[in-house]
């Protein structure tokens, strides 16, 4: 499951409500039961930039353990919706995270409730090292450097991409695009999220690297983490996902037609 033996759970030394919940979850082996609230429920979300409506209406439900992909042409609101859900933008409408109502525009709340965003174009810190990034990901659940570095979440994030190990002291600004993407993912993971929102992970990456990233995502999903993925070209994402949401002209709705899904998976992407 998500967490390991109690002795090495994330945030052992810091009393966060979600950590205690997480520890409780370990001792109760029943994983995804029907009584569990869905990971994310987005209803009637509406996002504007001033007078400009970026997301008209978004409705979607993501159950725990799902891997949902958001598809749609560029410039139609996918990234805006992702940022709004993650609390980085003000929004109208409601978002429920594991049954709790999320206050709008409150990213620290979201991160504490284990919803983590890996943003488009990564948004790294150019003069901080790789290790620093992964450490900073732990900011979500602790303020102690020692707790962060010795936690399970940190180790897991480091092990996710062994290719990064030789670069641990390197500054993020000097990494290649693929390495930066891996680092962004690792940073998102060290926050120990239950829900990971990933925006265009393969922007600017070569084929081989993209495959590596997707393999990692599949691995995370298999561990039980919920994944909400944004991709412009859906064919790759649809191979690891079990549901899709179409975002077009600011309207986000779930795709339920199997025919449509398989057509997309076969390679016809809508422009």
């Amino acid at each position, binding site marked *: 499951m998500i967490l390991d033996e109690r002795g090495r759970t994330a945030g052992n030394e810091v009393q966060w409500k979600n950590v205690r919940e997480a520890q409780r979850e370990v001792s109760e082996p029943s994983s995804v039961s029907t009584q569990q609230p869905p990971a994310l429920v987005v209803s009637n979300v509406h996002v504007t930039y001033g007078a400009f409506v970026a997301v008209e209406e978004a409705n979607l439900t993501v159950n725990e353990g799902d891997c949902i992909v958001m598809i749609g042409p560029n410039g139609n609101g996918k990234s805006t919706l992702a940022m709004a859900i993650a609390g980085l933008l003000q929004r109208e409408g409601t978002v429920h995270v594991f049954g709790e109502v999320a206050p709008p525009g409150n990213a620290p709340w979201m991160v504490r409730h284990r919803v983590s965003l890996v943003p488009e174009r990564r948004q790294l810190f150019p003069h901080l090292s790789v290790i620093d990034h992964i450490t900073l990901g732990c900011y979500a659940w602790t303020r102690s450097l020692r707790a962060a570095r010795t936690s399970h979440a940190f180790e897991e994030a480091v092990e996710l991409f062994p290719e990064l190990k030789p670069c641990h002291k390197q500054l993020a600004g000097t990494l290649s695009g693929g390495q930066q993407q891996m680092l962004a993912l690792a940073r998102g993971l060290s926050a120990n999220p239950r829900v990971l929102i990933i925006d265009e992970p393969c*922007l600017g990456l070569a084929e081989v690297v993209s495959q590596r990233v997707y393999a990692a995502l599949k691995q995370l999903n298999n561990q039980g983490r919920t994944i909400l993925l944004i991709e412009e070209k859906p064919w790759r994402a649809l191979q690891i996902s079990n549901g899709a949401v179409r975002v077009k002209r600011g309207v986000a709705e779930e795709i339920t037609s199997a025919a449509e899904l398989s057509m997309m998976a076969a390679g016809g992407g809508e422009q």
Partner: protein
Amino acid sequence: MLVPEDPETYCVARGPTSLGSRADQMGWFVSRTQTREGGITRGEHGAVTPASSGPPAWRGPLVTAIGVTVVGIVAVIYLNGNFNDAEFVLAVCSGIVIVGMVVQVGFAHQLAFSQSVFMGFGAYGVAILNTKYGWSVPLAVVVVTVAAALIAAPLGAVATRAPGFTLALATLLFPTIVTGFVVYSNYLGGTSGIGGIQALWSGASYSATLVRSGVIGVVVLGLCVFVCGRIMQSGIGLEIALMGASGRAAGSVGVIARRRRLELFMFGSALSALGGAIYAGTQAFVSYTNFADVEELILLVMLFIGGRAYILGGLIGAVGIQYLSGTYNFVDINLAIFEGVLLTVVLLFAPGGLFELVLRLGRFLYRTATGGGRAPVVAALASDGRGLGTAAILSKGGTGDGLPEEDTGDSASVGQALGRSEHTVGGMRDLPASFSARGIEVPEVVCRNLTKRFGGVVAVDSVSLEISGVGVHAVCGPNGAGKTTLFELIAGGLEADAGEVWVDGVDVSRKAAFERAQLGVSRTLQSVRLMNNRTVLDNVAVAALLSHRTFLPRAIWRSDLKEAHARALKALERVGIAEMASFRPGQLTLAGQRLTELARAIVSQPKVLLLDEPASGLSIEQRGHLADTLTELGGEMTVVLVEHDLQLVRDIAVEVFVLVDGRLRFSGDAEGFAESPVVRAELMGLG
């Protein structure tokens, strides 16, 4: 001419700028930075012409100037040399400086803190020339003003070369330096100052002298108001407005930003000196305390509180602050506290100054009185980061991520068996004879071994290509493949680390963006950069000005804004949105904004047109219309597109280049493009 069937596709709000043409007339009296269009009428054959184009552009500033002069003279005479009159004359002197600051700081956003120093220069200059060398005061005033401009020239030339806050920081220390020297100099009067300066126009008594000199001061002020108003309303003013809104866009339409910044600095300094000179001529005594750093802050406060980009606002600020500090002892003693608080409050709640607040109130009342109604809620095409205003919100609070926004290639790409393709001049589609009559001459754009790195990432890796002949050429590739970077290298937004760029036979590798624009390279940017407080017509006209190469003083008597407007209207007709000419960009959909940018790019009749993702965010019908427009343009100039929409590319492109990971992987015609295995694998995700 292509007209979309449904104009609403491009426009969100019905009706021109919500002011209405009556309220627009208010724009004259405040000498604000708008131009007035009388509206658009349709002729018999559907041709669109501007209505009787309204009053000549010099009328507004002239009316304001005369108004200010008359009011000032009346006030000076009425107050008849008493204490309030002295305060008023002081305000007039500050007013002359403030009017220059409105243009320099408020309108052109050139942040400099040198006005008080130049004011002191003017005052001391007149004082010395008059008391020590016996020159007549009016002559001294003129000499000192010209001298200030000349001194400002080398300072400005150096300081405005660098971007950012260089000018601000350098000029911040000016008052301290100058005070430090003056205080210890006997020649300059040391701490006691210089007295006994003759008046501008002497009279029988002290008060008569004050009145007469005050009248001259007011006349000079009126003159400055006229000049400043003319500048702001001229074509050069439009250039400056664009420079203030987006330096990149300004460079891309050929505005020589560096020269304009220098001219603005010289102009502001000259006017400051003039204000100081008049001060000397009316006060008979100058001392360094009047021009110390405190004075600079006072000037800034007058400017900001009054109304940053409004001449009348600035003047009212000057008079207001002067009056308050002169009349109320409490204010005078605690001037610093008072102004500090007032400035903070104004910045928080009325960033355009109190004057703008009053104006907005007036507009609001006017609209409710005439039942004009608000513009309908904008329900534009959703866009995440490509529209206006989104950039402002997203960049709120601090520095950007430092990583290049452009595409980044992945230098760790391993073992791709397909090597770089050799370039061949793509076969041209069969075009009607009239087009191919132009033949293929010198290639319009040539890139040789272009390379660009960002940090550790190679964005463009030794790309060589030739684009020649008319028609639409496309550059495609997956996200992050280096397409936008390549564009920037061709257009001049970035300088290559290695390799060359040639345009029409000229090596432009080291030339700035505005030089390439003047050579005939025109472009649009990936995110829309339009001036939101100007009409669509103005936004396009700025690229049609012939004044790019001229100097600032010419703006005072001659402005080619009218001709530019005419050319702009033609360009708007070509892209099909001529009806939107008097709208503001904020009232248009993204499609409308993109077409405005397109019109701006073609109005200068370029040889090479670079379009960065023009179809992004457009609907199917809008894309169809765009395709037709581009094909038509392709008949006359070399159009180069960066585009994701493969269908669009297949439909209109004559030649396609494919970039993957910063390298050129395919070039050829549209059929070859659809068949190429590389393309199918990388772009379409097949196989």
